[in-house]
């Protein structure tokens, strides 16, 4: 028996969320007195594998094969499901990101396993197996008990600390030949920006709302983001108006993020907006209206005109950086 965690790699590399997943799996493995193993599909760099191993994994399984470059949900679920059976995984962990959400439900059916998605933190108990998960779009948490012998969960990003144990994992590489009948999706084009900090990966996010008044006013917001190494985000009306790209829209119908720091500038703080950002560790609000609901979610606030406050903030960050 084992705790198995699926750690996706991005062109051979892992991300902070991979280390989070590994740390989390290792911790559950300790709780249940089982070994923690990771599975990745593709050709990860050897030093990346070694680094992933530091987070308490006993073993990392690497599945190579032809035509595995793009995510086909059926093929990926069959590979992960087979491995889960081979290692008799009692808990299977995935990220609550796009890939995890695509695969976990299919795996739940394959393995006849109960699924809890968007889990925050360690199980409340392992016997029975009870988890705390996101519910009501961030307005609540639910405790879910999984009754099946195999349990599947997807872990919310940024909800578990990294625990670097400087440990060393055994690496086992093997070939897989997916059933060609399963490979039904065909990717015909990829449109991707490279080199840009992804909103979902960013530790700091600077976000603007309708209070920014016009897309022409984004200059100081971009400057602030650049200085802080932050990603940019926006409220839904801002992307609906075409002021900013849809990629940046956060909230219930946009991206759900959990950075360490979220700047909400000229954003009123509607529940649908907060649904996407309320898991941020710290929220800073800048708004002319002292009664704007965003101040209830924020730890730090400035009541004032964003267009006047932002240049001063940029100046202050610049000064801090120069020290």
């Amino acid at each position, binding site marked *: 028996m084992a705790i198995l965690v699926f750690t996706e790699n991005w062109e051979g590399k892992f991300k902070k969320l991979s280390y989070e997943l590994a740390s989390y799996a290792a911790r559950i493995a300790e709780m249940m007195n089982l070994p923690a193993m990771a599975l990745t599909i593709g050709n990860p760099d050897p030093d990346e594998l070694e680094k992933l191993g530091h987070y308490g994994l006993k073993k990392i399984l690497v599945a190579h094969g032809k035509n595995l470059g793009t995510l086909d*949900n059926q093929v990926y679920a069959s590979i992960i499901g087979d491995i889960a059976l081979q290692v008799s995984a009692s808990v299977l962990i995935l990220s609550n990101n*796009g890939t995890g959400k695509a695969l976990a439900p*299919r795996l739940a059916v394959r393995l006849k396993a109960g699924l809890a*998605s*968007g889990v925050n933190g360690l199980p409340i108990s392992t016997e029975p197996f*009870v988890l705390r998960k996101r519910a009501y779009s961030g307005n609540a948490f639910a405790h879910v008990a999984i009754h099946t012998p195999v349990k599947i969960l997807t872990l919310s990003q940024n909800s578990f600390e990294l625990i670097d144990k400087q440990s060393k994992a055994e690496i086992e590489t093997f070939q897989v030949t997916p059933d060609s009948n399963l490979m*039904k*999706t065909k990717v015909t084009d990829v449109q991707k920006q490279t080199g840009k900090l992804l909103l979902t990966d960013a530790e700091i996010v600077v976000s603007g709302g309708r209070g920014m008044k016009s897309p022409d006013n984004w200059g100081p917001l971009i400057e602030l983001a650049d200085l802080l190494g932050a990603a940019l985000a926006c409220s839904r009306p801002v992307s609906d108006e075409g002021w900013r790209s849809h990629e940046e*829209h956060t909230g219930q119908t946009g991206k759900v993020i959990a950075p360490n*720091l979220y700047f909400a500038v000229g954003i009123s703080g509607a529940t649908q907006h907060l649904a996407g950002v309320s898991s941020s560790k710290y929220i800073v609000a800048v708004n002319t209206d002292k009664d704007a609901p965003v101040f209830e979610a924020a730890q730090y606030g400035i009541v004032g005109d964003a267009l006047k406050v932002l240049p001063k903030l940029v100046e202050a960050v610049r000064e801090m950086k120069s020290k």
Partner: protein
Amino acid sequence: MKILVCMSQVPDTTTKVRFTPDGKSFDATGVQWVINPWDELSLTRALELKDDASTGVTQVTVAHVGPVGNEPTIRKALAIGADDAIRVNTESNDAFVVSSQLAEAIRQNPYDIILCGIESCDFNGSSVGGMVAEMLGYPSVSAVSSLKIENGQAILSREIDGGKEILTVPTPFVAIVQKGITKEPRIAAMRGIMVARTKPLKVMEPIATEPLTSLLQFEKPQPRAACKLIDAENPQQLIELLQNEAKVI
């Protein structure tokens, strides 16, 4: 070509979420129930495809697993423009049970394209679309932000980190839909509301399945500490706090 839109019913997204004093169930007093926003968008897209004769879409059905009390929400979907509806007469918050019912309904009466939302706004399961697909052995594409049909071929785009992929998939398939699939949800016109009353709503009895999970308890997030206000003339004070108190920059 026939499209099935799977629809869940959720509290209006502006609802102040409250639970019963024991924390075991959602307090539904005074709550307005609506079509899950993603499903409203899926339905709108399905109807847009049907409006365009070149797509060959001839029928849009909505399916809902839920008790008779949810029929007003199903009628709303019919009023928006769905041709007919299926309701499986059972209630469960276990995704495996819900998916088993939908899969069975689809087995009895197959569709070419099945649309599910990326999550229900209440329980945030992100489960049903993928489960239904696996139960039926259909391919699934998730995070779908565009769906077109050209020369009988479905062309989808899917959001990936930092961009999107364009892909094709043979029918039947399940598309798990997110933002972008259409601009604005369609709303019911007066005429739609009138004809919705007479559109077919088929009620099916559930098949027997055991839930794999159960919901024990709800809790509200810890209230955050009161917001510290910083003078608008002195934003450097904010930077100091972020650096030395919160330690996040």
